């Protein structure tokens, strides 16, 4: 009897703890929606969680949940002309996933801005990420003069969020030459359609008419990256020389094309679908960058 009471006590404490923490998170995010001139908050913040995100963005929720979405706050603002600016702040589990969800939606061509960690503006829209937060501002019916204020408003939101800006360090290993600007992405699952590769960073390249990708996959340790490589090599359409994993390993992935990579400690770094000569050059630069950082 006594034990049951204590068990219930612990359960109760846990419930209270998580409840309080949830409320605290909610309150903390509530503070991320600032007041700014020309607009008034038109309603209370609406909150969504993993189990209710579908109610707000329907099928698009899957992509957010994949990147370990935790909480969304939505605040509407109205200006004097009854035009609505909607601010959505998505919290993900960590800054890598914040970047991941942001990068899965960012355009290749766009007007990029130094807001938060990085952002961009399009007609009626300004989106940016800041650490684990992905912020989406939309005001399709807001007139142009007020849309020009979006960066200023975004900066106010970023200030409220606080913390350290910056994009994931891993993306800085991709050399600039030939890289499609702002093409860096973090893919959380099934990189190149292969579950065994799990997650990784990619960047698009375009050289001499060839388009291809560079990638970085980080295993937990060297053995983990070796296992991933071994699984990948099982997909190769012909035998592969693997005596020296730090020299490029070259093989044809049945679905993705020519893969050239090297393994450095726990990392697999390489190119997919790049012409051999260009790939060798890029691999050399990738290795230099990795060893420098």
């Amino acid at each position, binding site marked *: 009897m*006594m*034990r049951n009471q*204590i*068990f219930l006590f612990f*359960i109760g404490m846990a419930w209270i703890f998580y409840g309080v923490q949830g409320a605290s998170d909610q309150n903390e995010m509530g503070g991320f929606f600032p007041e700014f001139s020309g607009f008034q908050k038109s309603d209370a913040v609406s909150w969504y969680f993993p*189990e209710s995100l*579908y109610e*707000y963005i*329907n*099928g*698009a929720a*899957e*992509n957010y949940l*994949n990147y370990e979405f935790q909480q969304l706050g939505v605040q509407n603002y109205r200006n004097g002309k009854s035009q609505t600016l909607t601010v959505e702040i998505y919290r993900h589990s960590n800054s890598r996933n914040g970047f991941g969800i942001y990068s*899965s*939606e*960012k*355009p*290749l061509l766009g007007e990029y801005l130094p807001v938060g960690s990085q952002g961009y503006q399009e007609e009626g829209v300004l989106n940016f990420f800041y650490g684990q937060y992905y912020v989406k501002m939309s005001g*399709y*019916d807001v007139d142009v003069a007020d849309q020009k204020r979006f960066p200023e408003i975004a900066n106010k939101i970023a200030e409220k969020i606080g913390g350290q800006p910056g994009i994931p360090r891993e993306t800085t290993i991709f050399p600039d030459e030939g890289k499609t600007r702002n093409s860096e*992405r973090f*893919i959380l*699952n*099934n990189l*190149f*359609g*292969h*579950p065994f590769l799990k997650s990784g960073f990619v960047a698009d390249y375009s050289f001499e008419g060839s388009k291809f990708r560079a990638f970085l996959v980080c295993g937990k340790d060297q053995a983990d990256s070796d296992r991933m490589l071994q699984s990948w090599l*099982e*997909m190769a*359409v*012909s035998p592969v020389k693997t005596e020296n994993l730090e020299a490029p390993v070259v093989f*044809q*992935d*049945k*679905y*993705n*094309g020519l893969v050239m990579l090297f393994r450095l400690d726990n990392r697999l770094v390489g190119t997919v*679908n790049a012409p051999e000569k260009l790939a060798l050059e890029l691999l050399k630069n990738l290795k230099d960058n990795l060893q420098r950082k």
Partner: protein
Amino acid sequence: MTRNQDSINRRVFLKTGISGMAGISLLNQLPGSPRLAPEETKAKFIFRTLGKTGIKLPIVSMGVMNADNPNLVKAALDAGMVMLDTAHGYQRGRNEEMLGQVIKDRSRDSYIIATKVVGTPMDRQTGLFTAETKGEALLEKFDISLQRLGLDHVDIFYLHNITKRDAALFEPLLNALVKAKKLGKTRFIGLSTHQNEPEVIDAAIESKLYDVVLTAYNFRQDHHLEVKKAIARAAQAGLGVVAMKTQAGVYWDKEKQFPINMKAALKWVLHDPNVHTAIPGFTAFDQMAEDLSVMENLEFTEQEKADLVPPATKLSGLYCQQCRQCLPQCPANLPIPDLMRAHMYARAYKNYGESQDLIRSLQLSTSPCGSCSTCSVRCTKNIDIRRGIHEIAAIGRIDPTLFA
């Protein structure tokens, strides 16, 4: 079985690809080059006609929403899938752009493409459109979609995410859809619904204008019988019926302990003959292989039938059933059923005191499996016994006053 487990010899498929399934070699073919599923492979697939559109489709199509790898889409088309389903809003347009890259080198009659646009503004509380909702805005977005896809027309243009009869029949948007069809920008028009599906499907029938309905439909919906009946009415009225959300999530539980058998869930939907095709989403080649296998065989295995059992029963079944068949197999003569019971007390019921009492009563060493490097015991329920023992043995070492 789940997406994570082999079902049609995934490794064989992945190693040999489509060629392995069809017995031909693809070694000389690089990704991106046209590779069509050979006729003998296609002949095995089950086809259904998408209502009055007359389009014959394999029963499984590709929900492209979360796919970001063009090679995956290419592989799906090469393997025999025909319809690709995207939307204006997926990945803020990147999804349509990616598809545009994939299809630009393929003949227009080799694939069917469907996209969706949301009508805005919509009152989120009521699910209804407002006086500000204009057909022109819908068509502007649709034009952007065509541009991203690099097409002058799609096959199906859906009004996306309808939850109410009045929204399905909202004249300005319905007129816009009809206009797009008249202009040749789409061959057929439809609507998609994720909620309140029967009412919306009936409205689509009532309109006599929609050609296709795209509806959420799966074995875990509380109201799946109502959806089933509505689908039957739609099919009877000549509408094409496409099913989505067929796999009912990925896990049974919030803790993500118990994955849903995706293949069984997909088969469940397609056992309804009024569903003409389904659009499961996949992001990996092995998931695609699983879905391809459903395209040619809808028969449930015994395991798949069992995997569709509701969670409560399923959860209890995944814990030790005390059949005691493990006992003679253990070289250390461990009381495995008792250990598994203790494990269940801790893991499932969070009753650590009871679990510890039981463990201590067994008077085992702190490392019960210490004398064995591998475990030769095979559980009839596939419980990982060695892991379970390892996890639970430690509880005996914890100060019991913590649980007293």
